[in-house]
């Protein structure tokens, strides 16, 4: 019984106004005790206890209200309004007073608003991006039933074999290619995606005008469906387009419909949005070869079956068919493995890790910002102790003061949140525009209501938590004590100092993580950028063309040569060449376009080395600045020759010198090696090319790709229009959409790393600034709070230098602890980063040492200024003010 009464008594003393407690508390407790004693049953006692504790809240509330009414009648009114004020008026008064109080301290208000804005803004922006990429389901009906067949592109016969696999409602395949639209002012290069019969049904697409494909279309495929965006941009939204014929790849095609506006085809299948869709004729030649892999394949799984079931069924099918079908066998005879995964996973696979990392970095930044907000509020709350004490002595009541402080915190939080939201909007818009949006659906990014709600909630929670903590502390304390202690009491004592120290240590540790991450990513980017590509990047301009449907195979080489000659005639051009691809056209792990096994002796038994095959024109090596390490390039007209790269030479013959004059055999032909060139970074600085075979261009006439390159003096590249005119002088129907320098291709190849390193550098810098501010603030505060002590020391003859050093040491100690803590965490975090980092070990000591060095330097600087201030304390003034 006694503890219950004691608890009741404690509550009564805490919850009620002072006057009330003085007059009534003793009797209330006595009465309660008497009630308990009088109750004879357990249940009776329980009822008394429950009723009494339950009534406390209401009674306290009423008591405070009564008190306010009393005060209104008395002249020593505190913060209450006039008698007769309604609750709205009083609330307005509170807000106004809060706003005035904030305006009186612009540096504090500005700092907190900025910090909240920073934290909330960056968190909101990142959350928008991540939400869009990772959290939203795919915009198709029942997206969890959609599957995707991995391992690149597949052949028509493979698709046929798949149709027998159980558990699948429908397969959907797509073949993305270039097509040339003629009949307008200039020829246009369009993206055409050929799709199978069920494609639109599987992804729930509907027509905006006309219709989509029906079964008949696949027998007579001279029809097309146009995408909504293309309908607007290419045909100007012409309502008469449906039913009309357009000229694609030289033949007439009838437009039967326009796809609805919002339809976004799945990225893994179509790699972007096509301009036109055409039916994929299952009987066409391209669909009949097992080795002709052109299709990206997806599927809708039957209800009741899972994607894993389909994956297993496909594996079974491959195993069963492997003995009959060579394409289903690996080199060692085992069946190939072609995993089938959920489309959702495939869509975000590439960016999921990056985005997770980004979220983590933003989380850290947010924590650092919150820590600084806490600093500021703590310092301010304690600093206002004096003001609060005076007001309470004059009769202001506790709740009203707390309410005002709460109003201040909310105002600041809302202002910071609004600012942060605006900043996030700008950031998201900027992100949307950059070419680095590898995030699926990036074009549709926009801040939505959920993000808005998060922003408001985050800012309010931040402000209220940090605003109330010290506020409650300040108003709870004995006002007389606050007045008596004067300046000394305003620091809040050892507890607060420890809290602030802990905050600083935390901030330093967190900043170290971000700084280390930034350094790591920067080094990765630098490593990537410094890789020697093996070809000349300056002074080369490339013109990628697609001659699909324009030239038949027989005439391609002849037309290509004609274009090459025309380009060489352009003033400023020193040489021109072409191939199927040019260096850096394909990066990030994708490659193109031709590979074969290379044998040293004729006959199938000899051991093969798999090499990429590059059909190139005469002059290719000159234009790209690739000098042979042995032998020479072939002369014009030389037949059955090849130039190989060093990797192939070593793998096949042991060394470059040994290879010249030898013969290599492939399925395509046997060729004599006339020269060996160094390995190039054809597919990007981070990709090791491996063995490669260069052959004269005629061997590559089967490919519709024609990528030209011209050499000019560095800095004196011929204008793009001149090059275009040269191409059109040979063939006015050939679209020339892109003219791009190798320097720009090179920048694009490292664009992702470049962006990432800049982004994390920004995070690191921001965190660093915040940590520095936090540390400087804490040290300054510590100095201010110990002014009396410092004054005494100085008066007693302690040197200024010693005082300075002592303060500096204090700051450095905090910083060192934080740095050590941060190093430990970074060590662990580095492991997670390893996958996305090129060329640098993630827990690389140089990076860690660099980050630690930066942090310690910042810590030293942040402590130095307050230390100097401490040294310059005037003992006379400090002691005299007591």
């Amino acid at each position, binding site marked *: 019984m006694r503890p219950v009464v004691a608890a009741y008594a404690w509550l*009564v003393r805490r919850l*009620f106004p002072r006057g*009330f407690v003085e*007059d*009534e508390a*003793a*009797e*209330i*407790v*006595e*009465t*309660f005790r*008497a*009630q308990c004693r*009088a109750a004879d049953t357990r249940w009776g006692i329980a009822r008394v206890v429950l*009723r*009494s504790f*339950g*009534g*406390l809240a*209401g*009674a*306290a509330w*009423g*008591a405070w209200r*009564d008190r306010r009414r*009393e005060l209104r009648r008395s002249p020593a009114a505190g913060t209450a309004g006039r008698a007769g004020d309604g609750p709205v008026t009083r609330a307005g008064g509170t807000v106004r007073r809060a706003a005035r109080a904030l305006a009186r301290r612009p540096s504090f208000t500005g700092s907190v608003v900025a910090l909240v804005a920073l934290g909330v803004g960056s968190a909101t922006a990142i959350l928008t991006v991540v939400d869009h990429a990772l959290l939203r389901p795919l915009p198709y009906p029942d997206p969890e039933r959609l599957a995707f067949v991995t391992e690149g592109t597949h052949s028509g016969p493979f698709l046929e074999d798949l149709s027998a696999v159980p558990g699948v409602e429908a397969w959907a395949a797509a073949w993305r290619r270039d097509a040339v639209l003629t009949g307008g002012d200039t020829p246009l290069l369009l993206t055409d995606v050929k799709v199978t019969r069920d494609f639109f049904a599987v992804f729930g697409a509907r027509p905006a005008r006309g219709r989509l494909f029906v079964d008949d279309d696949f027998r007579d495929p001279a029809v097309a469906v146009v995408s909504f965006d293309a309908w607007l941009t290419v045909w100007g939204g012409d309502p008469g387009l449906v039913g009309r014929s357009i000229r694609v790849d030289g033949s007439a095609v009838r437009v039967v419909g326009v796809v609805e506006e919002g339809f976004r085809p799945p990225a893994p299948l179509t790699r972007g949005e096509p301009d036109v869709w055409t039916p994929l004729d299952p009987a066409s030649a391209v669909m009949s070869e097992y080795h002709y892999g052109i299709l990206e394949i997806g599927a809708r799984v039957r209800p009741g079956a899972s994607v894993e079931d389909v994956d297993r069924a496909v594996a079974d099918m491959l195993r069963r068919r492997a003995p009959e079908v060579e394409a289903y066998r690996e080199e060692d005879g085992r069946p190939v493995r072609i995993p089938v995964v959920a489309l959702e996973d495939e869509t975000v696979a590439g960016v999921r890790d990056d985005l997770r990392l980004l979220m983590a970095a933003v989380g850290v930044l947010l924590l650092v910002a919150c820590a600084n907000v806490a600093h500021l509020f703590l310092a301010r709350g304690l600093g206002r102790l004096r003001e609060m004490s005076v007001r309470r002595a004059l009769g202001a009541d506790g709740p009203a003061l707390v309410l005002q402080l709460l109003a201040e915190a909310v105002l600041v939080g809302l202002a910071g949140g609004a600012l942060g939201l605006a900043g996030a909007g700008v950031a998201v818009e900027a992100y949307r525009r950059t070419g680095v949006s590898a995030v699926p659906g990036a074009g549709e990014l926009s801040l939505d209501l959920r993000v808005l709600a998060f922003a408001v909630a985050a800012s309010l929670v931040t402000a209220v938590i940090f605003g109330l903590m010290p506020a409650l502390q300040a108003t709870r304390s004995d006002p007389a004590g606050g007045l008596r202690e004067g300046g000394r009491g305003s620091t809040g004592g050892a507890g607060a100092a420890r809290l602030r120290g802990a905050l600083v240590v935390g901030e330093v540790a967190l900043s170290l993580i971000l700084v280390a991450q930034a350094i790591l990513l920067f080094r990765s980017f630098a490593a990537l950028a410094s890789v020697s590509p093996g070809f000349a990047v300056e002074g080369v301009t490339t013109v990628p063309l697609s001659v699909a449907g324009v030239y038949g195979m027989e005439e391609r080489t002849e037309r290509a040569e004609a274009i090459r000659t025309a380009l060489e005639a352009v003033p400023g051009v020193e040489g021109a060449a072409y191939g199927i691809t040019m260096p850096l056209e394909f990066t990030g792990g994708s490659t193109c376009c031709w590979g074969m096994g290379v044998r040293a002796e004729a006959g199938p038994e000899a051991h093969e080395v798999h090499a990429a095959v590059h059909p190139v024109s005469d002059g290719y090596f000159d234009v790209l600045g690739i000098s042979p390490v042995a032998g020479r390039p072939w002369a014009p007209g030389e037949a059955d020759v090849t130039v190989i790269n060093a990797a192939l030479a070593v793998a096949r013959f042991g060394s470059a010198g040994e290879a010249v004059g030898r013969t290599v055999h492939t399925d395509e032909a046997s060729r004599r090696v006339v020269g060996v060139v160094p390995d190039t970074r054809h597919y990007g600085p981070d990709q090791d090319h491996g063995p490669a075979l260069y052959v004269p261009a005629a061997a590559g006439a089967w490919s519709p790709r024609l990528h030209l390159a011209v050499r000019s003096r560095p800095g004196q590249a011929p204008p793009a229009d001149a090059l275009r005119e040269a191409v059109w002088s040979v063939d006015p129907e050939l679209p020339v959409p892109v003219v791009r320098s190798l320097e720009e291709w090179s920048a694009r190849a490292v664009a992702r790393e470049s962006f990432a390193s800049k982004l994390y550098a920004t995070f690191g810098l921001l965190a660093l600034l915040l940590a520095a501010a936090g540390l400087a603030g804490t040290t300054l505060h510590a100095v201010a709070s110990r002014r009396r002590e410092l004054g005494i020391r100085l008066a007693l003859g302690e040197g200024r230098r010693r005082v300075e050093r002592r303060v500096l040491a204090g700051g450095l100690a905090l910083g060192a602890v934080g740095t050590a803590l941060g190093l430990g965490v970074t060590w662990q975090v580095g492991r997670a980063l390893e996958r996305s980092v090129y060329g640098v070990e993630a827990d690389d000591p140089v990076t860690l040492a660099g980050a630690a060095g930066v942090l310690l330097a910042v810590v030293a600087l942040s402590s130095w200024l307050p230390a100097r201030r401490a040294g310059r304390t005037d003992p006379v003034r400090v002691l005299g003010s007591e």
Partner: protein
Amino acid sequence: MDPESHLPLPPRTLLILAVLAEGPLHGYGILTEVEERSRSGVTLDAANLYRALRRMRADGWVEEVDEPDPEDPRRRLFRVTPLGRSIVEAEVARLQNVLSWVRPAQA
């Protein structure tokens, strides 16, 4: 100071005043009386009682008795003032009036 301007009274206040109108009592006594009379219909705990008493003292409806309680000098005795008495009487009259409107309908 028109008593009617304070009507209607909250049930708690009415009961406390009614109990005190019969004679001075200390806090615990008021609690027990109130509980008994209302047959636990009106629940009152110590804190709320004393808060109500304090308010009624401020308003002048109740006053403290100068002589201490003979049984326990620490406890205060409260009694109703003439103003308080007139308020209780006014409220009772009002309630009876209200009841008289209702009764004919029940018949």
